[in-house]
């Protein structure tokens, strides 16, 4: 059965390593913070200017001056720090953040990503995504494998305006975990109960399928 958003977040959380500073994008990536594996410690950076994000505030304790990059009210942990946007992107551009997780509308087999614009229809802007994808050593994309019409978003080439080129290393969808290398998607794991055939059917880009594709353990 395909994963729900929480499943995708849980699977991505398995990629976290002790001591990492991590930037989580808006949407599914934000949920990753709820599933940090036991025994490891990570710090969350939000590009609007905070390191050491904590849980959402208790009702009545929201502070309009304390939000994350998704404009949600947050709290901070002990040892947190606030800083300005230039400093925040110094951390990102300077590769001090070890992992970036973000959403996408399309990903291509050479690691291109598109997530900020549909010409003539929707333009939200790139926000910090272009800085993040251009700089991060380690980028995981959390996305749906296909759109509502059933068309693949895992492509040979992106059709939408790009956010970054050749930067995505790993993609986690409701169906599969894929690595990108040598200009191809490589199927690493499948969601519980999802068959390799289902994944192949919804993947437009070149997909390397090994003999044995393990099921995710969540």
């Amino acid at each position, binding site marked *: 059965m395909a994963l729900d958003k929480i499943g995708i977040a849980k699977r991505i959380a398995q990629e976290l390593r002790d001591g990492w500073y991590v930037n989580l994008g808006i949407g599914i990536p934000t949920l990753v913070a709820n599933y940090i594996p036991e025994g490891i410690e990570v710090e969350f950076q*939000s*590009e*609007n*200017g*905070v390191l050491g994000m904590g*849980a*959402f*505030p*208790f*009702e*009545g*304790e*929201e*502070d*309009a*001056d*304390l*939000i*994350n*990059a*998704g*404009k*949600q*009210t*947050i709290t*901070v942990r002990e040892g947190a720090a*606030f*800083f*300005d*946007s*230039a400093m*925040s*992107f110094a951390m*990102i*551009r300077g590769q001090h953040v070890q992992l970036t997780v973000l959403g996408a509308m399309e990903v291509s087999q050479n690691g*291109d990503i598109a997530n*900020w*614009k549909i010409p*003539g*229809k*929707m*333009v*939200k*802007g*790139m*926000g*910090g*995504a*272009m*800085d993040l994808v*251009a*700089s991060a050593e380690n980028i995981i994309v959390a996305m749906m494998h296909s759109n509502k019409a059933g068309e693949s978003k895992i492509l040979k080439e992106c059709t939408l*305006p*790009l*956010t*970054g*080129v*050749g930067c995505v290393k790993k993609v986690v969808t409701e169906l599969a975990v894929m690595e990108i290398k040598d200009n191809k998607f490589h199927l690493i794991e499948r969601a519980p109960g999802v068959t390799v055939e289902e994944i192949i059917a919804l993947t437009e880009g070149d997909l390397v399928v090994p003999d044995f594709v393990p099921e995710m353990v969540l």
Partner: protein
Amino acid sequence: MNKVVKNVEEALVGIEDGMTLMLGGFGLCGIPENSIAQLVKMGTKNLTCISNNAGVDDFGLGLLLQQKQIKKMISSYVGENAEFERQMLSGELEVDLIPQGSLAERCRAGGAGIPAFFTPAGYGTEVAEGKEVRIYNGKPHILESALTADFAIVKAWKGDTEGNLVFKATARNFNPMMAMAGKITIAEVEELVPAGELDPNYIHTPGIFVQRIFKGEKFEKRIEQRTVRQK
């Protein structure tokens, strides 16, 4: 050096049609709301506004958009504003979308006398069109230029009579860099204190960057995404 002006009316004197303004804030967090309200009152037109976001439909810069006071927006993310999207897609509004980190760095550069710098952000995208590309450390970078403004309008938590500013939590965001980059920088603050009351070790924006400071009359500080957990 006393920078205090009486009120928002006096603070915004000199802002004219066609000028370029920088306005601090991320989303609705840390925006100079008193000054924005006054700009609506003044009805100044054909403004170029440099601001990370464009507010929401009925608050922040959205208020200026409603009144069609803005000719051009220079922003990184405008996703929360339907009127913005309408004006942009219809071509009424010129929009220059810039990666958030490049926007922050370009404002800082403008204030710091750095006319241009290389950044990897945006390489290979629309943002890089027409821009010089160079490889550093094996990675392509594009040349980005400094941004400045006729007026920068920032919002601080506390400020003193000399224009020294302190920001609270994530309401800091773009305010410090924009304060550096304004030919004239106006600060509206929640608390205005005498010189000497702020610890000189913990000033975020030194007064040298601020020409006018005033205590805002009222701060609504609207929350965009109230997100809570249960006790």
